[in-house]
């Protein structure tokens, strides 16, 4: 049989010339922690890599990585990918997508991902897109996910990052998600739980967030033992954040004294909190929600007393 470049077939024969799944503008990579091997090329489901990092090392701008869940273990849950992965400018606009078994994607992320140290996923890649992933920060991990934007070498490296249908468990010492300010991130249909050092940080004291959108998210089981602002569900760290939109979120826990569901802190914040429910009685914008000035609005939000939060 003649050998042709990628994508050329000889009539009546099998695909020749290598990658079956290449395309002109992106490469699709496949990761299978059960049946894959890092020695594989990673470009077909039946020649998948075994680790996410092996695929990331080969991925370029705009590529897509599909990751298959590991085997379910009774009493433990879904088997976990245990690896810390770093993505950088060379992987900007990368998508990492968890695959569910047929007909059960409605039940949420089936792919579990943890690490033994550092953040599970450490990103300096603009426009990173995450879907259907369950981040599980172990006891020795710092947190689930960090989107960096804090130094000359990675300025605005977290602009345009999006996450959809992901779960983030911070662990007894860790963070959920840390976004170091930046612009136009979207956090949609995500679930945050048990992050002792804070569930979702959207800015740092030195870097503002702009045009960030948090929608349909659930925050629950945060630490009830501490009293610091760092344990806030959504925390801007005292920075000014602009055009922030938080809508239809459920804060499913009682907030400890001196701790906030939402803490913005900066006095020039602008944006809207709409249609949220806070599962504690007598929630106020003094002790439980810090709006960061008078240009951050809150409308249509209720607390556990069915009282309108204002």
């Amino acid at each position, binding site marked *: 049989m003649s050998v042709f470049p990628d994508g050329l077939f000889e009539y009546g024969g099998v695909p020749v010339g290598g990658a079956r799944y290449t395309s002109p503008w992106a490469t*699709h990579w496949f990761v299978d922690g059960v049946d894959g091997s890092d020695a594989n090329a990673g470009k077909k489901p039946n020649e998948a890599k075994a680790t996410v990092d092996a695929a990331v090392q080969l991925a370029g701008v705009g590529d*897509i990585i599909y990751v298959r869940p590991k085997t379910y273990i009774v009493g433990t849950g879904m088997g976990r990918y245990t690896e810390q992965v770093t993505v950088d400018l060379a992987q900007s606009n990368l998508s990492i997508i968890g695959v569910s078994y047929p007909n059960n994607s409605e039940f949420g992320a089936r792919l579990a991902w943890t690490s033994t140290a550092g953040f599970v996923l450490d990103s300096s890649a603009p426009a990173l897109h995450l879907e259907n992933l369950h981040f599980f920060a172990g006891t020795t991990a710092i947190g689930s996910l960090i989107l960096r934007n804090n130094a000359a070498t990675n300025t605005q490296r977290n602009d345009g990052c999006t996450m959809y249908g992901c779960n983030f468990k911070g662990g007894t010492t860790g963070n959920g998600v840390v976004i170091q300010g930046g612009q136009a991130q979207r956090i949609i249909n995500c679930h945050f739980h048990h992050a002792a050092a804070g569930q979702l940080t959207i800015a740092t004291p030195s870097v503002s967030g702009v045009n960030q959108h948090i929608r349909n998210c659930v925050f629950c089981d945060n630490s009830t033992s501490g009293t610091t602002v760092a344990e806030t569900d959504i925390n801007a760290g005292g920075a000014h954040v602009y055009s922030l939109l938080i809508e239809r979120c459920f804060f499913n826990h009682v907030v400890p004294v001196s701790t906030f569901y939402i803490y913005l802190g900066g006095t020039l914040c602008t944006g809207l909190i709409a249609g949220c429910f806070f599962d504690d009685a007598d929630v106020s914008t003094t002790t439980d929600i810090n709006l960061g000035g008078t240009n951050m609005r809150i409308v249509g939000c209720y607390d556990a007393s069915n009282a309108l939060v204002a």
Partner: protein
Amino acid sequence: MANIIIKRPDIFGKTRSEQEENMRKEWGQTMTDENLDKIKFLEKKAKEKVGSIKNFFTPIDADEVK
């Protein structure tokens, strides 16, 4: 004997819905059937309006379809 060459550079899918349908043949699914329908709708509209035949809509975009 002449060989017939068929060029198929985009077999896994030029769009998210094509990729999703191929993925379902191999491993499983990455979105609900409802979101898949919505993404097909978005791709159809993109093709009609600007002629785009290769794109990558996500469920974030699908959520905006009512």
